[in-house]
């Protein structure tokens, strides 16, 4: 029998206020299982600003600093430097922000924090739109998606631009650790978090976190969709340690992207040609990632 690799310790208590089937909630639970109690969280405006509960209730048993939308990079820098000044270098400092707060409004502060090299975790839980405000397009919304600000209409005004690749932007900062993860692969996520914990310096995670409310899928499909995102190469799992790429899972026979799209109402309007265009985008990105892995592993 395989050894259980998911810690039994829990730092997310019952009573959260997230939607049924929320991927971001599962992501938080695993992150805290991996990093443990000696952790301080910084959370900006995002779903997770609401999920812990209304004052004075709190579903997390680690200290938590709520902040303005765009400041996570600066906030974790401040917490880290204050802790180090007090000699508390063993405390994990974790920024936990949505894709809007990371790819869009918080990108400047994030970039600066990564460049300065603070010993922090930045975790982007990626539900691919501004979900807390009710499903508006972000830079991380994927190609072809419906949102309330790309509502289609007579002009088919959907999100046609490719998803902003934040993990690659972080790689360009030459930080020691960048990884992607998703909730259907908890062992992979936890192993990566544990590896990252041993590294001093900035650590960036992009965790794909399906959102039933915004992606328009039944709450019981969250894990299945997360898994399909990997099996179709829509969201490859990989890590970049000191510039070296390592793809975590290489599907032998990747499933067609269509299988991933058809489960989600946000893609239901897509024509065959449009699905083909998305398939090509996914294939191109996958090929580019394989090349990066090959090139970076060469001595």
């Amino acid at each position, binding site marked *: 029998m395989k050894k259980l690799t998911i810690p039994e310790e829990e730092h997310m208590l019952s009573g959260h206020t997230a939607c049924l089937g929320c991927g971001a909630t599962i992501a938080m639970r695993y992150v805290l299982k991996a990093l443990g*109690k*000696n*952790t*301080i969280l*910084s959370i900006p405006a995002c779903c997770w*600003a*609401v999920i*812990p*509960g*209304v*004052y*004075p209730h*709190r579903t*997390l*048993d*680690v*200290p*938590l*600093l*709520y*902040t*303005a939308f*765009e*400041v996570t*990079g*600066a*906030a*974790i*820098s*401040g*917490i880290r*430097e*204050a*802790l*180090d*000044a*007090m000699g508390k270098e063993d*405390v994990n400092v974790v920024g936990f922000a949505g894709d809007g707060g990371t790819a869009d409004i918080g990108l*400047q*502060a994030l*970039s*600066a924090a990564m460049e*300065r090299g603070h010993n922090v975790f930045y975790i982007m839980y990626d539900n691919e739109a501004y979900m807390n405000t009710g499903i508006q397009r972000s830079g991380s919304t994927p190609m072809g998606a419906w949102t309330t600000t790309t509502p289609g209409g007579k002009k088919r005004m959907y999100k046609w631009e490719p998803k902003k690749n934040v993990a690659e932007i972080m790689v360009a900062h030459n930080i020691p650790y960048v990884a992607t993860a998703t909730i259907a692969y908890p062992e992979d996520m936890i192993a990566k978090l544990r590896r990252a914990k041993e590294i001093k310096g900035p650590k960036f995670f992009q965790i794909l976190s399906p959102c039933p409310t915004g992606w328009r899928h039944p709450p019981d499909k969250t894990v299945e969709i997360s898994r399909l995102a990997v099996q179709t190469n829509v969201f490859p799992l990989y890590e970049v340690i000191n510039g070296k790429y390592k793809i975590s899972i290489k599907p032998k026979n990747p499933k067609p992207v269509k299988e991933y799209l058809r489960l989600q109402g946000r893609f239901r309007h897509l024509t065959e040609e449009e699905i083909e265009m998305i398939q090509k985008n996914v294939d191109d990105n996958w090929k580019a990632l394989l090349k990066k892995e090959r090139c970076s592993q060469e001595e």
Partner: protein
Amino acid sequence: MKAILTGNEAAAWGARLSRPKVIAAYPITPQTSIIEAIAAFIANGEMDARYIRVESEHSAMAACIAAQNTGVRTYTATSAHGLALMHEVLMWASGARLPIVMSVVNRAMAPPWSVWTDQLDTMAERDSGWLQVYTQNNQEVLDSIIMSYKIAEKHSILLPTMVIEDAFILSHTSEGVDIPEQKKVDDFLGEYEPAFKLDPDEPAGFGSLIMPEGPYMEFRYKMALAMEDARSEIRKVVEEYNQVFGREYAPFVEEYKTEDADAVMVVIGTIGSTAKDVVDKMREKGKKVGVARVRYFRPFPTEELRKIAKGAKVLGVVDRSYSFGPGADLFAETKSVLYGYADIPVKNYVMGLGGRDITPKIIEKVFDDMLRVAKDGVVDKEVEWVGLQGDERWS
């Protein structure tokens, strides 16, 4: 130790002596030489602090908020557009009850670009929940930073403070300054004791969601009470500082020959020193004039101004900014606290915007205008813009 320091060097010394553990700062003219001096102190091992060279003022304040909430004393400095960019997080700092101390070098807001002094930047933040102390010379810049930590950190206050100096007139002008001994400052300030902090051993959430029936309104009310309580704490700390360090600061309003004055000019910042000089000259001519220099704009010196108005025949309120309301800020607020307490004419003089020079000659003409208003007993024009191009009345 006596030294020749610019206002910005004095600010850096004030910060150094107060021993903040985290500094997060971003450069902007005319604040830059403060954060350069601090960088040099740290680089030379003269100051033990973590220095976060952030990518914006917004992040400077956000990093100070996070660091202070983690349990250490912090410091930053900014000007004009930097302060405006911080606006959102200024509210966050005060709402979170974090006693951050920040230097602000008053500078005009663009457009058009102007790096010179003008108080619109800080006046526009009067509702941010920060204490605001305006200084008149480089000694006061240094001393006010030390005093501000002591006042702000008191657990019954816990509101952040802006220590404000005029661009160039103070920031880049050298004067003799007495630098207090570190030991004396340490004894005066004591170790920073946070009222609460982010601590894995005692996990708590700071700033969580609150419903309308929840205590949001009560939190704001407590801030209002703290701003009121700050009055007695300011008085206490200024008196103690005067005694320990041999200074003569008035807590809220520095009065100069107001006792028997018919016309009292209410000013803020460096205009005060020019006006005092003019008062001496006009007194020689037998004109009964005086100056009230407001140090604290937040909390507003309500009682002090009421008392001054009781003895005067006219108040002329000088603003180095304009707020597009019923006159500029110092004027509007002065007038509002006098309503029902003193029935004397109050006139607003808006001058020196964008760093335009305020000369002794202009001040004298303003005093003469005030004396005329006192004689007539009516304000001819509530808001007078002084020294506009083509207006020869004041030159």
